[in-house]
Every structure is written in structure tokens, then in C-alpha cells.
């Protein structure tokens, strides 16, 4: 499954109320490292088992980014039971991303 495009209208339903952990990629089109990580996030979304993957285009969803105190991107945040449990800032490779959601 492709990564879910998240916005302020579906964030609660898709992320906060999700019964499985959610890996959220806060990114923006103007940011090079975000573009590097994007295909890896899609690959993980395709293969995800036991968790789901969403992405926030911060240029369109700045309120959402600020609400979750995102100030450097790419920023990967793992939500579990409606709460943030892990966060990683900057480009990382697939094994390290999978480690976050394990």
C-alpha cells in the first residue's frame, strides 16, 4: 500500500486513532534530503506489516508540522496509541527506519 497522504482532516483518524503503530514522514518538496528519503518511505509503506506509513507535505500542512514541533526535515515520527514514541531527524537508510518502527 502506498503511504497515506496525511492532512489536518484525516490525521486524527489515520494516525492518532490507529490501532497499529504509524510511521509518519514530515517532508517538503523544497528539501533535497526529503526527496532522497521519499522513495524509501514508499518502499517501506508497500512492504509494511503490523504498522502503517503516512506522509505530511509540510509546505501544505504547516499547522500540523508546528503542532508536532517539527522544525527540521525530513523528520520521521512513530505514533503508537495516539502518542509519539520515536523520532528521527535527517536522512537515514531503510534498516535504520525499520528499526524505529520495530
Amino acid at each position, binding site marked *: 500500500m502506498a503511504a497515506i497522504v496525511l492532512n489536518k482532516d484525516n490525521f486524527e483518524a489515520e494516525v492518532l486513532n490507529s490501532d497499529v503503530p504509524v510511521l509518519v514522514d514530515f517532508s517538503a518538496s523544497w*528539501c533535497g534530503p526529503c*526527496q*532522497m528519503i521519499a522513495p524509501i518511505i514508499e518502499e517501506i509503506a508497500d512492504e509494511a506489516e503490523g504498522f502503517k506509513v503516512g506522509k505530511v507535505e509540510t509546505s501544505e500542512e*504547516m499547522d500540523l508540522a508546528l503542532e508536532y514541533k517539527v*522544525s*527540521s*526535515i525530513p523528520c520521521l515520527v512513530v505514533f503508537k496509541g495516539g502518542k509519539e514514541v520515536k523520532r528521527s531527524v535527517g536522512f537515514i537508510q531503510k534498516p535504520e527506519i525499520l528499526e524505529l518502527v520495530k
Partner: protein
Amino acid sequence: MFDVIIVGAGPAGLSAGIYTVRSGKSALILEGKSYGGQIINTPDIENYPGIKNISGFEFATGLYEQATSLGAEVKYEQAVSIEDKGDIKIVNTEQGSYECKAVILATGAKNRPLGIEKEKEFVGYGISYCATCDGAFYRNKDVAVVGGGNTAIEDALFLTNYCNKVYVIHRRDTFRADPKDVEKLKSKDNVEFVMNSTVEKILGESSVEGIEIKDKNTKETKNINVSGIFVAVGQEPDNQMFSDLVELDESGYIIAKEDCMTNVKGIYTAGDCRTKSVRQLTTAAADGAVAALAACAIID
């Protein structure tokens, strides 16, 4: 066994890959992070001959696709040590070991940190090394840019478009940056220059709330409230793991001239990681070609 192993998939390493495979030799490129190196943080490249304008991401991706489609292999493994067995070299990574006949070190350079407390901890919580990536999150806020080179001044200029106020903290009384950009920055009304000063402390509990700066001459300290600190104090090499293999200068750069040869036979170096006066995209690409052709020549 590979003919040539290239450590680093930035512009120098990928260019070396292209020249190696086009010489009919096999190439393995090892990269610990992402391909492209520092250039992926650059939104607009406008000084690469033959290309009027391109983003760093597009440039890096084009270079990566060119190298891999020609037959260079890229593995995302961090090289940790190299054993010199004469005609054979062994490159050890965190995952495995690879043999080859020649090595090209193209490890690049990384952002130099301020090296003060809380800096690492607050990356993503107010500390940033990429103004173009993160500037938009500081709309209407007060921020500090630390540094006096081109990157610092370009970052400050960019941030004046978003931020309420931009403090430029520089340890000298003049800027190394392009005078035209400095003049442009001086004309902005939301910028304040804090010269002859260094950042001593990062203030804040869970994120950046301010900085303590010290005037070099008067030794006086004062606090400035900012919610973001953009660090642009230059680059530093990352060659310590090879310090027992090849000669480094006191800053950690691999010692080599324009021929890209190190003091060890069969080990070459290319790009920002070597001693050189001009570190640009074009010189990185040029080094890649020079190092690869030299390496291929000794294999024959």
C-alpha cells in the same frame, strides 16, 4: 574481486564510478548515507558548466543513474577500514569485506558542528544545518545564523524572508562571504550583525530558546532569545578511520595534489576530502575523473 572500490557516493565518487566503468573496469561504490553528498542540500546549482539551473537533488540523482546504468555498483555500507596488501586492498564495511586492486577515497566533508553542549540533542528542536530545508518552520520567529562564509550569508538572506529577526553571529569583524551578498544582507531591516562573538551556550530545556554569546574583545557575555540556530561554520573532513593508512594534514584532509595520488600505491583520493584550495562541484567531478583514470592505469 572488484577492480576499483570507491568510498563515497557524492559527486567525486560517482564521477569516479563513471570513469572507471567506462574504462572497462568494475567499480563498487560504498556509501554510508545517501548518494549525492552535500550537494543534495543545495536547492539551485547555477555554476556547473553546461547546466544553467538544476536542483542538487536532481543533479545527484542524474549522476547516480548515469553511474549505475553504466554498470557501477552502489552498496549502502559504511567503510570502516582498509587493509593494504600490496596489489590487493581489502575494504571492510560494517556489513562485510570486499577485495579490489585500487581504492579511491571520496569521503567528502560534513557540516562542522559548533561543538558545544546541547547541540546534538537539539538537532530537530531548534538546531539546523540546512536553512533552505528548515527555514519555513521559523516564520515570524527570531533566529540566529552562526558563521561568516558564503553559506552563512546565503542562509541569513534566505531566512530574512521568513523570520521576524535574524541575528548573524560571527567570530571575526569581517566576512569571508561574497561582498555582494553581504551588502544585500545589510540592506535588510530585520537583520542584526553580532561581530567578534562566539556562541558559548545553547539555552532552553527541551528545545532552543536562546543563546549565550561572548564578545571576543570585551569578554562580556549576553543572552539573545532565539527559537532557531542555523549553524554554518564550514565543513570538516571525515577521514579519521583512514589515518593509519594514508597521510592526513592537521585538519584531517587526505594529502594529495591535483593528480589525486595519496602516499600509498593504489590508493587515490577525490573531491572535498583531499587537500585542495577550491572545493566546488566541478572540481569534485574533475577529481573523480583524474583518480579513476589513474587507478585504471595501474591495474592494466
